[in-house]
């Protein structure tokens, strides 16, 4: 795995929840976990992230938005475009300003569109893919649509 943010490959300061974990700081939890441990997560005052599948409607986890520091949207296959609309909805409708990360089946050739709908970090399969994704972010110097308001 390699993480791209701000057009660079960076060290990931986040990790996914594991069974042995003691502290919840900078942990990305599942929707189930959030739903079952809401109070504990909020009271811990530690930054945490939420992993959601791209096909989820934003309504189903909108109450978490004011508590989380990161939303990781998972693409089951790269051709499933629902995650794009989800990110756009989080940015435009819910005014979510923190990190939105693309995870799962993410291809370098999608970096440009992903960044334009509001993703600010992309998890890619390898360093090679990540380097390519950074190149691909610069594929276009112009575009027609106006972009997400909060970018």
């Amino acid at each position: 795995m390699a993480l791209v943010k701000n057009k660079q490959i960076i060290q990931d300061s986040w990790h996914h929840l594991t069974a042995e974990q003691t502290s919840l700081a900078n942990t990305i939890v599942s929707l189930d976990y959030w739903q079952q441990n809401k109070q504990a997560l909020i009271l811990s005052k530690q930054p945490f992230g939420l992993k959601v599948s791209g096909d989820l409607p934003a309504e189903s986890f909108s109450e978490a938005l004011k508590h989380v520091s990161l939303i990781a949207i998972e693409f089951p296959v790269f051709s499933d475009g629902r995650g794009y609309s989800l990110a756009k909805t989080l940015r435009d409708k819910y005014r979510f300003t923190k990190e939105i990360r693309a995870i799962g089946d993410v291809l370098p050739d999608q970096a440009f569109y992903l960044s334009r709908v509001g993703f600010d970090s992309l998890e890619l399969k390898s360093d090679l893919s990540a380097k390519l994704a950074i190149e691909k972010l610069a594929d276009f110097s112009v575009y027609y649509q106006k972009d997400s308001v909060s970018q």
Partner: protein
Amino acid sequence: MYLYNELDQTLVNERVEQYRDQTKRFLNGELTEEQFRPLRLMNGLYIQTHAPMLRINIPYGLLSSKQLRMLAQISRQYDKDYVHFTTRQNVQFNWPALEQVPDILADLASVQMHSIQSSGNCIRNITSDPLAGVCADEIEDPRPYCEIIRQWSTLHPEFSYLPRKFKIAISGSPQDRAVTQVHDIGLHMKKDTDGNIGFEVLVGGGLGRTPVIGQTIADFIAEADILSYLDAILRTYNRYGRRDNKYKARIKILVRETGLEAFKAQVDAEWKDSKGGELTLDAAAIERVKAFFIAPNYSVSDDKQLNSDLEKSGAFRQWFKQNTREHKQTGYRVVSLSLKSPHRPPGDVTFDQLQLIANLADQYNLGQARSTHDQNLAFTDVKTEDLFSLWQQLNEHQLATANIGTITDMICCPGLDFCSLANASSIDIAQGITETFTDSAIETGSLKLKMSGCMNGCGHHSIGEIGILGVDKKGEQWYQLTLGGSDTHETKLGERLGRAIAKDDVISTVKDIVNTYKQHRNDDEKFATTFKRIGIQPFKDKVYGTR
């Protein structure tokens, strides 16, 4: 006609380079076939039976003579000296080499053309009325809005991985010449009681295995709000459209399964948040695009020369009657260039013909031509005094077959000859029909025959007055016929004639159908009217009674 500014040109140029790199990586093995597939598709490149097929957009059917010459040159340099015009006003090359496609795209970019989103699960080329701007019955010229929607939908970051392809057509006239009712979204230009411009919005139409006529989702959306409304429909579709089965992934299925009212409520909920926001079109933005489509300075002229020309030649008279139409300006006519001559498959145009058309466009039609949904071309601004010499030159190059709107002016997909999805051939059937009916086509009258080589329906068979669909029966080619469909403002699906017909019997069956119509018609009653009056039974009796 719209002309690119620096932004448009940069975007298309950068797209060429992006695709060049993707092709290179695919050929190097850095991209798998599965990964490359959606990338090449979003650039119009299919893999067909013999070779790749490259589809080029002709935005709402408008072409300059310069672009025509470029298409000709590409057909010579990279293909086999011909191109094929499609039912969505686009053009296809049937024999390009995959590794040369980036060079073809660079050539196209030099004349402001591209293949962006001409296939793939994204918003396709915006189509429209080929008579936009020149027909007398127009409420408003749809072309500026086509261009605005073209720009908005091009390289759209959010809507490029939709459940399935998405087609939008716009008509500015009550007479629908863009088959808007069988598009994912059909837009009908309208004015409200105060004269404000807007659109009636239809949703969920489509052909293919489940043909559906689009339904009205909104009676009037003001021009300022059209993009935010389209955005709301697309987002609703992108979120809820089915992705589990590619045959159920079009928006028509979503609308049907959700119910129009519930779907409309979802769209409205989405729109509530975005209406009046960043996608709102201001008057200045609309005016800027409208400036590209102001009517030319028509000269004042009369039909004196034409009238004397008409006296001269019977063949010219016949062509004039069949292949030209009224123009809103006196002294001008709209001319159809028939791509349905007996000499080649429907919609095909050769290198020589393209060159000629470009020259004639410069000479007689303000340097422009248009493609139509029925796979012909049109010159929309020809002075009537020029018609005779235009006809002579078209005639010499087999572009003046006087058959527009008749049975030999059929729509036909490439079928088994090119398409890997086909069940049956369509080009040879088309040839047979042309041979059989060439002499009697005009006398038979207005009759729309449409033919597809498989259920995908690229040849629009479901809305043909006579529809022919290729089906596979244990490896043999059979044909399912339908009657009474319509592609007009009252679009209708045809009724099934009966069991499928063997290939050898298709032509004689069509003959039986035509004869039955002729036998029952009153005076010069059209096929559609006769069919409505007598129903399908007499046709069934004739066709199956003898078999």
